[in-house]
């Protein structure tokens, strides 16, 4: 009954007859599908990187920020004097049972020097448990110790970039790095992490005991953040609640007044980040989708021209016994052939472009097989959708009128 194969051959012949036109029409689809594949690839790549970055924050981590944060996530009072103290952090470990370890945290940027080399980098003041919480091992040497923290010792663990920049071809262990002219001895080098999603070099930093950072480098008495690790995922919420109560009490905040700190758990931060990356993927996909629709309109346009041009052919086919459905199928298959071949080439182009981006600009891209499958069926759907109207127009022609058409 269905003479699909013969009809496909007719469609193929009709398309080959007008090679340039076929090519140009397909180009619309190629660009559309290619753009969708590349854009979604970029979005997914970013998402995957954010996810791995969040995983690298460690497990069951709660972060206490100094200052309050509005519901939209905007930090207020960021630049002002901090509200968290070392005593606060000690109280958290002491009084909340579900907390395993914490790391008081203080951050700054500073000029550092080694010999005659200068470098501008981030300085993190942390507790000795920071490396565990963040699951960021020291690969050469060892992390600093609780004694180093107690004594505010001048010891430092450096990222791979610092090691490479300040001590090229040398062993950085035991060397002196001057942070704001304060000499620190390097005791360890961190495992290299590479670029973050935002393109920041994660290995460009120096970690020192938070006490040393407060007393010797920044000369402040308050902390910026406190990293808290809960024992189990189920404890995240209760611990978070207890931290809020404890700090309100310690900061003497009366009921009804706002917190002067913010507590976020890892899940919340992850959700926020993935929501952002999802929005980005969606936006990129939507922009690319527009070009796909434009490609579809191109197909519709060409099919309408083709139906008009071939009115006589349609009349001849009908006169010798083609049913309306045969004609409909012929033109629909023609449209779908255009869109599917365009789609397949577009998938190839999209994969190529995103691999080029990944290789040349070190943009993380991720082409999932589902997005390829979706793109394939979507391009077929575009052919059916935009081919249907012209095909139906052809199939409804009256044989006599079509034969008489000049």
């Amino acid at each position, binding site marked *: 009954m269905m*003479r699909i194969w013969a009809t496909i051959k007719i469609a193929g012949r009709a398309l080959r007859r007008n090679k340039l036109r076929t090519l140009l029409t397909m180009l619309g689809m190629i660009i559309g599908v290619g753009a969708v594949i590349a854009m979604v690839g970029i979005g997914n790549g970013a998402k995957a990187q954010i996810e791995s970055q969040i995983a690298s924050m460690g497990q069951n981590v709660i972060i206490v920020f100094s200052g309050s944060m509005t519901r939209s996530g905007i930090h207020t009072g960021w630049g002002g004097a901090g509200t968290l103290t070392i005593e606060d952090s000690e109280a958290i470990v002491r009084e909340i049972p579900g907390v395993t370890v914490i790391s008081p945290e203080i951050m700054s940027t500073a000029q550092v020097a080694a010999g005659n080399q200068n470098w501008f980098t981030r300085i993190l003041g942390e507790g000795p448990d920071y490396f565990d919480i963040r699951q960021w091992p020291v690969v050469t040497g060892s992390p600093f110790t609780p004694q180093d923290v107690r004594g505010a010792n001048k010891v430092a663990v450096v990222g791979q970039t610092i090691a490479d920049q300040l001590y090229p071809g040398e062993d950085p262990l035991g060397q002196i790095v001057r942070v704001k002219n304060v000499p620190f001895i390097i005791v360890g080098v961190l495992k290299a992490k590479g670029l973050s999603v935002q393109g920041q070099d994660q290995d460009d930093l120096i970690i020192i005991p938070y006490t040393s950072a407060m007393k010797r480098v920044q000369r402040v008495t308050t902390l910026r953040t406190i990293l808290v690790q809960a024992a189990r995922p189920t404890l995240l919420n209760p611990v978070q609640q207890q931290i809020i109560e404890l700090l309100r009490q310690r900061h003497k905040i009366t009921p009804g007044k706002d917190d002067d700190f913010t507590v976020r758990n890892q899940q919340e931060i992850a959700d926020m980040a993935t929501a952002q990356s999802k929005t980005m993927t969606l936006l990129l996909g939507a922009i690319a989708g527009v070009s796909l629709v434009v490609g579809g309109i191109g197909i519709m346009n060409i099919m309408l021209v083709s139906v008009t041009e071939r009115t006589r052919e349609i009349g*001849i*086919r009908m*006169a010798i*016994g083609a049913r309306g459905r045969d004609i409909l199928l012929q033109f629909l298959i023609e449209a779908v052939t255009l869109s599917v071949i365009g789609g397949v080439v577009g998938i190839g182009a999209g994969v190529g472009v995103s691999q080029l981006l990944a290789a040349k600009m070190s943009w993380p891209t991720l082409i999932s097989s589902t997005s390829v499958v979706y793109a394939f069926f979507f391009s077929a759907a575009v052919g059916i959708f935009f081919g249907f109207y012209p095909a139906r127009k052809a199939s409804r022609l009256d*044989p006599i009128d079509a*034969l008489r058409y000049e």
Partner: protein
Amino acid sequence: MNAVIQLEDIHKVYHTGEVDVHAVRGVSAAIQTGEFVAIMGASGSGKSTLMNIIGCLDRATRGRYLLDGTDVSQLDRDDLADIRNEKIGFVFQGFNLLSRTSALENVELPMLYVHRHLPGREQRERALRALETVGLAERADHHPNQLSGGQQQRVAIARALVNQPALLLADEPTGNLDSQTSIEIMGVFQTLNQQGITIVMVTHELDIARYAKRNVIMRDGRIVSDVPVSDRLQAETELRRLRDAQQAVQLTV
């Protein structure tokens, strides 16, 4: 009664613009199996309109048309398409071949729309046999623009025959051909008719009508005369006579 075509008071009115054109005004006729009918008449007398109705390409405005005993006026578009495919072979004045498509593929075309689909090899064989019937097998791969008018019309006839219809309809099949080619085409028709195919053709040329067995004359949408052909011409004889005459001319020159 086993009439292939039974027309009962057929009318056709074209509603175009402001005036209605009453192209066929009450035609009644019966055509039996094995007949060879020529419909004649002046231009505009409604011949093509009537042929299109007989060929199920168009519908009568009024009246009944029985094809092989079936009332065609009751059928829908798809049924009419199937009838055109299976029962009727139609030859047009303008050949109506698909350009840039070989003669063989043109002839294969009706088999594409057959319900019981034939394997590709069998389609080719049947198309070749149809081309042989019209004496054009050796031109199977030629495209219409590589063929003369007479050859194109033969391809069109082969296409009309390929689904082995009982009825062959032709609207001015020789209208675009010179006289010798016209006689050749009439030869093909006479052979087919001898094999049992019923033929109805429209022509406005008196001598062409004489190759048929029965002449129907139309005027203003009505049949005004319907007579058997008494002095029927045989294409074979006429062709021989023509060739002899041509030779005589060549000899004297």
